[in-house]
C-alpha cells in the first residue's frame, strides 16, 4: 500500500515535471503558421467574413475578444478556462462541441490553441500585409536561394552551356531567339564580360518592350474588340498597346507606369501619352447587345476595374467581397464599395461608341512625327521631291480616337452605395472612397490619382512584392509566391520569403522602380544561369523546382512559339509598333457574329509580325495561340496555365504559318548551310538552338532526309517541333 502511494506520488511528481518541462520549453506559438491554419480550416466557414454566426468572427480581431451574442467571450487572452472557444472545442456534449457536424479538432490542434490563449492570444497580421524587411545588407538572390538549398541538402547545379544561356536569356528578355550573327558574336566573345554585354544589349533591344508588354496585356485584359454579343471591333486601341511597349522600352519607372495607367488624366497638365495610358482601364468590355441595360454593364465595368486593380497591384482577389465580406481575409463588404467609389466617377457608361474618346497619337507615332517635322524644316524647299516624299510620310501618321478615362465634373459625380449581396439593383448605405483597413491608410486624395499614389507609396506592403513576383515568374516559370494573383491567406506561402522581401525593397528603393535593373539582377544571378537538367534526385526532392537547384524549364508562351519559328526561318518582320495585324487563319473561324468585321489576312510582310501584334478578338482569339493557352482577355489573368495536348502538335506540324516557316527554314538551310546535306542540317539545328546536334540527333535528322526522298522541308518541320525548341530550358 505504502509502496503504491509512493509510486503514485512519484508519478504525480514526474507527470507534473513533464508538464512543467513541456510547457516552459514549448516555443512560442506563432499565430500565422500555427494558429491561423487551424482557424481557417475549422472555424472560418461559420465565423469568418461571410457568416458571422452568433456575431463571432475570427477574422476581425476585436470581435473574438468581446462577448458574442450568447454573452460569452470566445477568447480571453491568458485565460484558457474563461475562453468559450476552448470550452467548445473540448466539450463532450454534442450540442456544444465545435465544429458541429465535423470531426473534432485533434489533440495537437487543441493543445496549440490552448497554449496560444495561455500565451496571451496574440494575433498577428498575415505576412503579406506587413512591410517587407531587409535581412542583411550583403544579401543577394543567390544568398537566399543557396541558403535554402543547403537547408534541404541540395546545392546549385552547374552553369548552363553558353548556347543554352544565350537562347534562354534572349528569349527571356526579348521573347526572341538570337539571330545567327548575334549568336556567333556571343559564342566567339571569350571575354569575362561577354554575358553581361549580351544582357545589356538585350535590355536595350526595341524587342524588349514587346516581350514585357505581352505579360502586361493579359493583366490589362487588352483586346481589339468590345466583348459580349456583338463584340464590335476597337480599331484604335492598339495605341495603348504601343504605349506599353514604349514604356517598357524606355524603362518608365514602375511607380510612374502605375500612376499614368490608373490616373494619367488626373495629373496636372497631363501629356497626351499620360492620357493614352488610362486606356488601361478602358479595356473593360462594352455590351452592345440590343435590350441590355447600360447601367448594369457600366457597373460591371467598374467592378472589373476594382477587381483588376487589386489583382494586378495587390495580388488580392476581392471579387468575392462584391457580395459579402471576404471569407478568409480581413476585407469587409463595405470596404469593397469604398474602393468602388474611386472608380465610380468616370464618364464612360457602356456606350456602344466607347465614348469618352480622345484623338491621340501613339508615343512612337508622336516621336516619328516630330522627327519628320524636323526633317521637313531642314529640307525647307517645299517643292523638292524629297520634301514631297517626306510630306507624304508625315501625312500618313494619323491619330485615332482612343477611349480614355475621364472624370465626371464635381457637380455631376455619382453617389456610391453598397450593393446588397452584390446585386446592383439593391442599394444599401452610401459610402465614400477609401482604402481598406488591413493596409496602411492613404495619405492621398480620394480620387483615382490618390489611389494610384497609395499603391506605389513605399508603405504599401504588397505592391512591390506582387510586381517583383510577376517578373520572377516570367523568368523562372514559378513565382516565389506560386499564386501570383493571391497573396492572401488562401494563396500559397512564398518559397523564399526573405528573397521576396529583398527584391521588393531593392526594386522600389535601390532601383527606383526600374524594371530593367530588376531584370538585370535576376538574369545575372547564379541561380538563373544554372543548367536546367533534371536528375533523379531533383525529381524526387523538388519536382517543380520550387527550391531552384536547377535552371528554369517550361513550355514557351504562345507568342514566343510563333515568334521563334518566324525568327529561325528568317521570316520575322521586325517592325516595332503599329496597328494590329491579321496573319493567316483558317476560313470561317471568325464567322462568329453577324455583320461585324471580317478577317482579312495581311500581305506584304505584316503577316509575319510578332504575335503581340495579332488582332485579338475576344469571342474568337487567334486559334493557334488559343491552343497554346492564351486567355481570351475578357478579364484580368495573372497566370496562364500551361497544358500539353495533341492539338498543339497539330498547330506546329500543320498550321500554314508553321508550314511556311519550315519551308523558309529549308531554303535557308540549303542556301546558307554549306555544300553538304549534313552541314545544312546542322545549320538548321543551330539556327534553332545555337549549337550543333549531338550525334544521335544528327543521324536521326539525316536519316529522315534520306527516308523522305530529300525533303529538307520535313527536316525543318521536325526541327521546329522538337521538345528542346518548344521548351524554355
Amino acid at each position: 500500500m505504502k509502496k503504491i502511494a509512493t509510486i503514485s506520488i512519484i508519478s504525480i511528481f514526474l507527470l507534473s515535471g513533464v508538464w512543467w518541462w513541456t510547457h516552459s520549453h514549448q516555443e512560442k506559438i506563432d499565430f500565422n503558421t500555427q494558429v491561423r491554419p487551424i482557424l481557417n480550416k475549422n472555424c472560418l466557414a461559420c465565423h469568418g467574413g461571410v457568416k458571422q454566426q452568433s456575431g463571432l468572427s475570427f477574422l476581425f480581431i476585436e470581435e473574438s475578444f468581446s462577448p458574442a451574442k450568447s454573452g460569452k467571450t470566445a477568447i480571453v487572452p491568458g485565460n484558457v478556462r474563461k475562453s468559450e472557444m476552448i470550452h467548445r472545442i473540448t466539450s463532450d456534449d454534442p450540442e456544444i462541441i465545435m465544429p458541429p457536424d465535423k470531426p473534432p479538432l485533434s489533440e495537437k490542434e487543441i493543445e496549440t490553441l490552448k497554449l496560444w490563449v495561455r500565451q496571451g492570444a496574440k494575433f498577428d497580421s498575415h505576412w503579406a500585409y506587413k512591410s517587407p524587411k531587409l535581412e542583411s545588407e550583403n544579401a543577394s538572390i543567390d544568398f537566399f536561394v543557396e541558403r535554402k538549398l543547403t537547408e534541404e541538402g541540395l546545392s546549385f547545379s552547374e552553369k548552363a552551356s553558353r548556347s543554352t544561356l544565350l537562347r534562354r536569356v534572349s528569349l527571356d528578355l526579348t521573347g526572341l531567339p538570337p539571330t545567327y550573327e548575334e549568336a556567333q558574336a556571343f559564342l566567339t566573345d571569350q571575354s569575362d564580360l561577354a554575358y553581361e554585354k549580351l544582357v545589356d544589349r538585350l535590355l536595350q533591344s526595341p524587342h524588349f518592350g514587346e516581350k514585357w508588354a505581352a505579360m502586361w496585356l493579359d493583366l490589362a485584359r487588352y483586346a481589339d474588340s468590345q466583348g459580349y454579343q456583338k463584340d464590335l471591333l476597337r480599331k484604335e486601341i492598339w495605341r495603348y498597346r504601343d504605349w506599353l511597349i514604349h514604356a517598357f522600352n524606355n524603362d518608365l519607372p514602375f511607380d510612374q507606369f502605375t500612376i499614368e495607367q490608373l490616373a494619367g488624366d488626373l495629373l496636372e497638365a497631363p501629356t497626351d501619352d499620360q492620357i493614352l495610358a488610362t486606356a488601361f482601364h478602358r479595356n473593360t468590355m462594352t455590351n452592345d447587345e440590343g435590350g441590355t441595360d447600360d447601367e448594369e454593364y457600366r457597373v460591371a465595368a467598374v467592378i472589373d476595374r476594382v477587381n483588376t486593380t487589386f489583382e494586378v497591384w495587390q495580388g488580392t482577389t476581392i471579387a468575392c467581397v462584391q457580395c459579402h465580406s471576404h471569407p478568409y481575409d480581413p476585407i469587409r463588404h463595405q470596404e469593397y464599395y469604398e474602393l468602388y467609389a474611386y472608380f465610380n466617377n468616370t464618364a464612360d457608361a457602356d456606350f456602344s461608341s466607347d465614348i469618352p474618346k480622345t484623338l491621340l497619337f501613339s508615343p512612337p507615332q508622336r516621336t516619328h512625327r516630330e522627327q519628320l517635322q524636323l526633317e521637313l524644316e531642314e529640307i525647307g524647299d517645299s517643292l523638292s521631291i524629297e520634301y514631297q516624299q517626306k510630306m507624304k510620310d508625315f501625312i500618313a501618321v494619323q491619330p485615332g480616337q482612343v477611349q480614355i478615362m475621364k472624370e465626371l465634373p464635381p457637380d455631376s459625380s455619382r453617389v456610391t452605395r453598397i450593393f446588397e449581396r452584390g446585386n446592383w439593383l439593391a442599394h444599401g448605405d452610401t459610402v465614400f472612397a477609401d482604402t481598406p483597413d488591413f493596409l496602411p491608410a492613404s495619405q492621398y486624395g480620394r480620387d483615382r490619382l490618390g489611389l494610384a499614389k497609395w499603391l506605389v507609396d513605399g508603405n504599401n506592403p504588397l505592391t512591390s512584392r506582387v510586381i517583383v513576383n510577376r517578373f520572377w515568374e516570367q523568368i523562372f516559370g514559378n513565382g516565389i509566391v506560386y499564386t501570383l494573383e493571391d497573396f492572401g491567406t488562401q494563396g500559397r506561402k512564398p518559397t523564399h520569403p526573405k528573397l521576396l522581401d529583398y527584391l521588393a525593397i531593392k526594386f522600389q528603393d535601390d532601383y527606383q522602380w526600374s524594371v530593367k535593373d530588376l531584370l538585370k539582377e535576376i538574369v545575372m544571378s547564379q541561380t538563373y544561369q544554372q543548367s536546367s537538367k533534371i536528375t533523379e534526385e531533383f525529381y524526387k526532392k523538388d519536382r517543380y523546382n520550387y527550391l531552384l537547384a536547377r535552371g528554369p524549364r517550361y513550355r514557351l508562351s504562345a507568342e514566343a512559339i510563333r515568334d521563334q519559328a518566324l525568327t529561325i526561318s528568317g521570316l520575322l518582320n521586325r517592325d516595332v509598333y503599329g496597328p494590329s495585324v491579321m496573319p493567316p487563319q483558317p476560313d470561317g473561324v471568325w464567322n462568329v457574329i453577324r455583320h461585324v468585321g471580317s478577317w482579312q489576312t495581311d500581305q506584304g510582310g505584316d503577316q509575319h509580325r510578332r504575335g503581340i501584334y495579332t488582332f485579338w478578338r475576344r469571342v474568337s482569339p487567334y486559334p493557334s495561340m488559343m491552343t497554346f493557352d492564351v486567355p481570351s482577355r475578357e478579364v484580368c489573368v495573372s497566370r496562364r496555365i500551361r497544358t500539353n495536348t495533341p492539338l498543339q502538335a497539330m498547330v506546329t506540324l500543320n498550321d500554314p504559318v508553321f508550314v511556311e516557316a519550315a519551308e523558309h527554314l529549308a531554303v535557308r538551310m540549303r542556301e546558307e548551310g554549306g555544300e553538304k546535306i549534313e552541314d545544312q542540317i546542322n545549320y538548321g539545328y543551330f539556327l534553332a538552338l545555337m549549337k550543333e546536334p549531338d550525334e544521335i540527333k544528327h543521324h536521326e535528322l539525316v536519316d529522315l532526309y534520306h527516308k523522305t526522298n530529300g525533303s529538307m522541308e520535313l527536316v525543318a518541320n521536325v526541327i521546329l517541333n522538337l521538345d528542346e525548341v518548344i521548351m524554355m530550358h
Partner: protein
Amino acid sequence: MTLKEEYNQRIHSSMKRRAFLRSTSLGLGGIALSGLLTGFKVNPYLPKAKRVIFLHMAGAPSQLELFDYKPALQELDGKPCPDSLLKGKRFAFIQGVPDMLGPQFSFSRHGQTGTWVSELLPHFSKVVDDVCFLKAMHTDEFNHAPAQLFMHTGGPRLGRPAMGSWVTYGLGSLNQNLPGFVVLVSGESAPSGGKSLWGSGFLPSEYQGVELRSKGDPVLYVNNPEGVTRDLRKKTIDAINNINRQEYQEAGDPEILARIKQYELAFKMQMTVPEATDIDSEPEYIHKLYGTEPGKVSFANNCLLARRLAERDVRFIQLYHRGWDSHGSNEFESLHGGFLERVKEVDQAMSALVIDLKQRGLLEDTLVVWGGEFGRTPMQENRGGVSNKFKGRDHHGEAFTMWMTGAGIKTGMTYGETDEIGYAGVKDRIHIHDLQATILQQLGIDHEKLTYHFQGRDFRLTDVHGHVVKDIIT
C-alpha cells in the same frame, strides 16, 4: 466498359487523381484525351449517363408555338397586356403596353400520353412518348449572350468554364483518340455568347470544347499540308519522338515523355477525326431518317454526327443551332418567317436522333437535352412602343419549355406547368442551376462537390445554388 465498371474505376482512382491534379502541372495534357478514366469526387450513386448530347437552340424558340399550348391566350389575342404582367418587370425590348399575341399555330394531341404538340412538328409528334417535357423552366437572364452563358457556364458573364469542360475535367475522357468535349455549330453563325460558351474559363485549356467544323479541317490543323502523306507524317513524327527520347536522356524532364505521347495521339487523331466525322459512310436509310445532306452545314448533319460521336464515347457533345430570335422586327426574325425555317431544320433531325439512339441502345446511357436560353413573351414585341410589322415575341426568362431523354430520365412525362397564358411557371418550376445539377447527377457527379479553386474561392458550375430534380429521374 459498362457504367458499373466505369463507376468502380472512378471510385478507386478518385482520391489518387485529386491528389495528382492538385500537385501537378506536368503531363496534365494526357488526361482529357488519353482516357485515363479517373473520377473526381464521385456520387455515392451509380451514374446513369456516360455522355451528354445537348441541343441548344440559340436565340430562344417560342415555347408558345411549339409545346406550351395555351388556348386562353388565343382569346386575348390583340388585347392590351394587363398591367399586372408589366409592373416591376424588365423586358429586353417591350415598351409601354404591348398587345397580347395568341398562339400562331394549331396544336393537337399525340402519343399514348396525349401530349399537346404544335402542327409545326410532324416528326417530333411521333416521339413525344420517348421524352420528358420540362414546361416551367426559368432563368435569371433575358438577353442572349448572358442567358446562353448562364445556361452553359452557370454564370451570366464571361470567364467561367462550360458544362462540358466541367464534365471532362471531373470525369476524364472515354475515348483515347477523340476530344472529350466536342462542339458542333449550325445556323447562320455561331451563338451570341461566342466561343466562351465552350471555353474552359479558369480550368486548364485542354478542357475547352473542340469545335468540329463542317467545312475545311474538321479539327483545326488536323490535316497534313499538301504533299505530306500519312507515311511521310509517320516518318516525321517518328523522328521528332526519337530525338525527344534522346533529349529526355539528357535533360531528364518527364514533360518530354508527355510530349512524345501527345505527338503519338495527334497522329492517331489525324485518322480518327476524319473517320468519325465522315457521315458520307452512313447508309441511305439513315440519311433519310435524319434528312441529312453530306457536305452542307446543317443541324441534321450535326445530329447524325452527334450520334457517331456518341457511339465513339465522346463525353460531352454540344450542338448549337442559331437563328431563333423571333421578335417580329423583320421577316427573318418573325414567327411566320425565320422561325418556320428553323423549325423545319430541327424537327426531323432531332426526332431522328432520339429514334436512332434508341434503336442502337445508346439512349440507355446517353442523356439528350434540348432547349433555348430562355422563352418568349405571351405579348407581341413592340419596340419603340409600336407593334412590330411581323408577328413576334420578346425575350422571356420566366417560362420556357425544354425536353430531356435518355440515361435514366423518365419518359412519356410532362413536368411543370405554366399559367393560363404561359407567362410564368405555376408548378414544378426548374431553374437553370437545377437543370445543371440534374445533368451532373445523371453523370454521377454531385454538383456541390465538383469544384475548382480560383481567385481565392471554390467555384462550381451551379455557383451556390441548384437542386437535383428528383421527380424526373427513374
